[in-house]
């Protein structure tokens, strides 16, 4: 028996020793984990992982763990479900239309407050205005701008050449878009003139902003929860009626919501494409032809030209985490806001660099000279007049509203409804949702 005991004891000791040995390289064990849920897929997912790796290797106390949770909507839904189970991640990436929902959720720790609590200085003034404005309330930044973009025009230079068009001159007006489209089609250079990604974001939210027209009352919703949609006014109706007419002629070819129409441009089917500036990276890899970019086309007089608005997503900090963990979150956010990091992120992904110093460095480093396509979005966002109509849109239930608008756009483009009728219906339904949201968020 004693013999057996000894054997057993020595086995246990060995186990303990092995365990101790295994845990020796273990400052890793002591690292505080920061959960970071995001919605970046494909190439962008890899960029996020690379970014996080840089942060994790830059210091020894915290380990950010990125987790891809599906598309934007699914990520938000997952975060909400987790919050309700008290299992929320520290950081969650939420797309721009979820901003109002997050601000009023009572479930987040505003970024400006987090940084103040942790006494980490960030020069908010250095951030570019159209981005900061979208995510601030009363001058305070609520979420950390992460991936911001704005829609631009992509065009197939090879097809332009084939159609006898100047491949260095993208169309600037809608009239030119029509003219060029018809040339592309009649010459056989492309089957359709142009298509669009994110129909509501590009063809309504941004078109209205660019022409200095309101999307909703109350300064596009920034001034109160009782805002009403105004997309069924003159320009909205005119533009949608025009798109529907072009759809019939083949000048415009609808390809679905989100990025579903990307293949129409990549396959050469359509000669022009309006989509997020963040697609530059993907097109550089995926396109087998020469392409260029231009600013979104406009109707010209009598409309004033304003700036376009941003899209993309920001990082929200969920509340209720211990201060020690919040410190890690704050350090990570500080890290991604650094000038060098911003430059790296922009060059890698095509998303906008959000600090003026980063933009300036890119300019002095001739980055934009060498990559003029990456400058298009900055020009469009900063060179027009910023007006209340172009600072962004802040609506409750905006995810659902965008869905309603896109459904009605499909009804219009499919010829089921006239532009006026479809937009009127979209406005009526959206206003009900705004009322519902206001009622659920009574303060």
């Amino acid at each position: 028996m004693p013999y057996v005991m000894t054997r057993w004891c020595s086995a246990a000791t060995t186990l303990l020793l092995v365990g101790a040995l295994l845990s020796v390289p273990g400052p890793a064990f002591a690292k505080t984990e920061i959960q970071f849920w995001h919605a970046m897929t494909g190439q962008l997912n890899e960029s996020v992982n690379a970014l996080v790796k840089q942060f994790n290797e830059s210091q020894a106390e915290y380990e950010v763990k990125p987790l891809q949770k599906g598309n934007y909507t699914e990520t938000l839904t997952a975060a909400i479900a987790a919050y309700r189970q008290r299992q929320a991640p520290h950081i969650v990436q939420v797309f721009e239309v979820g901003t109002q929902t997050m601000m009023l959720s009572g479930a987040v720790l505003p970024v400006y407050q987090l940084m103040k609590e942790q006494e980490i200085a960030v020069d908010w003034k250095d951030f570019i205005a159209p981005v900061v404005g979208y995510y601030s309330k009363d001058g305070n930044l609520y979420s950390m701008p992460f991936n911001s973009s704005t829609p631009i025009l992509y065009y197939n230079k090879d097809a332009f050449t084939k159609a006898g068009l100047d491949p260095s001159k993208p169309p600037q007006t809608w009239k030119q878009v029509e003219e060029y489209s018809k040339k592309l089609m009649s010459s056989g250079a492309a089957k359709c003139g142009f298509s669009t990604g994110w129909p509501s974001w590009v063809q309504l939210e941004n078109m209205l902003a660019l022409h200095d027209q309101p999307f909703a009352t109350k300064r596009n919703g920034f001034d109160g929860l009782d805002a009403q949609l105004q997309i069924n006014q003159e320009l909205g109706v005119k533009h949608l009626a025009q798109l529907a007419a072009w759809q019939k002629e083949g000048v415009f070819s609808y390809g679905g919501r989100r990025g579903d129409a990307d293949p129409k441009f990549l396959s050469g089917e359509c000669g022009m494409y309006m989509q997020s500036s963040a697609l530059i990276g993907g097109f550089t890899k995926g396109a087998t032809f020469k392409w260029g970019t231009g600013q979104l086309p406009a109707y010209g007089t009598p409309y004033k030209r304003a700036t376009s608005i941003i899209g993309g997503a920001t990082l929200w900090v969920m509340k209720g985490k211990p201060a020690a963990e919040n410190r890690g979150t704050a350090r990570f956010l500080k890290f991604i806001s650094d000038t060098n990091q911003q430059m790296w992120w922009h060059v890698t992904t095509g998303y906008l660099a959000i600090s003026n110093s980063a933009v300036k460095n890119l300019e002095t480093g001739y980055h934009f000279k060498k990559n003029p396509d990456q400058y298009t979005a900055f020009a469009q966002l900063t060179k027009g007049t910023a007006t209340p109509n172009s600072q962004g849109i802040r609506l409750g239930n905006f995810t659902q509203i965008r869905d309603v608008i896109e459904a009605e756009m499909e009804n219009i483009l499919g010829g089921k409804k006239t532009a006026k009728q479809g937009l009127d219906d979209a406005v009526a339904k959206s206003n009900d949702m705004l009322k519902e949201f206001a009622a659920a968020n009574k303060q």
Partner: protein
Amino acid sequence: MQRTVFRNRWLPYALVAPQMAVTVIFFVWPALTSLQLAVYRVSPFGDRSTFVGLDNFTKLLSDPDYYASVVRSFVFAGGVTALAVLGALVLAGLATQKIRGLAVYRTLLLWPYGIAPAVAGIIFLFIFHPAYGILPYFLSFVTAYDFNWLLKGWVAMTLVIVATAWTHLGYNIAFYIAGLLAIPSSVIEAADVDGAGPIRRFTAIVFPLVSPITFYLVVLNMVFAFFESFGVIDAVTKGGPGQATEIMVYKLYKDGFIGLNLGSSGAQSVILMALVIGLTVLQFRFAEKKVTYR
């Protein structure tokens, strides 16, 4: 029927307990939760909720969009059921003929049932998508008609009906093969001797004899189409174009999980549940009379 008598009073309860537990945890409890949700207005993060009585229901019942989605659900469920049940009967009829390689055919016919609806949806998406699908590309050589279901509602509806029916075909075929094989060959031979042709034999003998199976499958396919067609629709059309394929279960998901309006979503699930229960009861009361059990 023989009545079983248990000596121990508790044994029978203990024996059904596991099944009851499963039913309560996975069916009754969620059903009660949605019933409770249906009378509240809940903020997205669930931290504020107000009792609103029947508000969620009255709002739904005064919304023309909701009725449109109910009608759409019946069109969808009717289409799926007709296609999946009739198609299965025809295919099972063929798969009970005396042909070479029968086992192979039967196995292949059952395969689609092993494919998850969402995966089936993705398969259809890759075949039919106007931007990157292979079939529209070939169709464009044959006809000038543009089958762009991103804009044409009826094409989209047809597509999701066919896709959903396809996923359920294998299940139905299995039942029909069993049913057809159970018909005594003597009955059919007798009809043959009496001079009945293949069509007459089918209408007078085969169809009535498999009618219990048909009835069971119709009920089951209906319920399936109302509740479990979510995967296909989410993968292929997401309810679009417009709301052309937004059937009740999809609208419920969209309002609840995308719109974060959990109250309305709860109310919709209660109505959907009531509707399907009612439908099944009706089927049992009226259709069952026409069924010949042996």
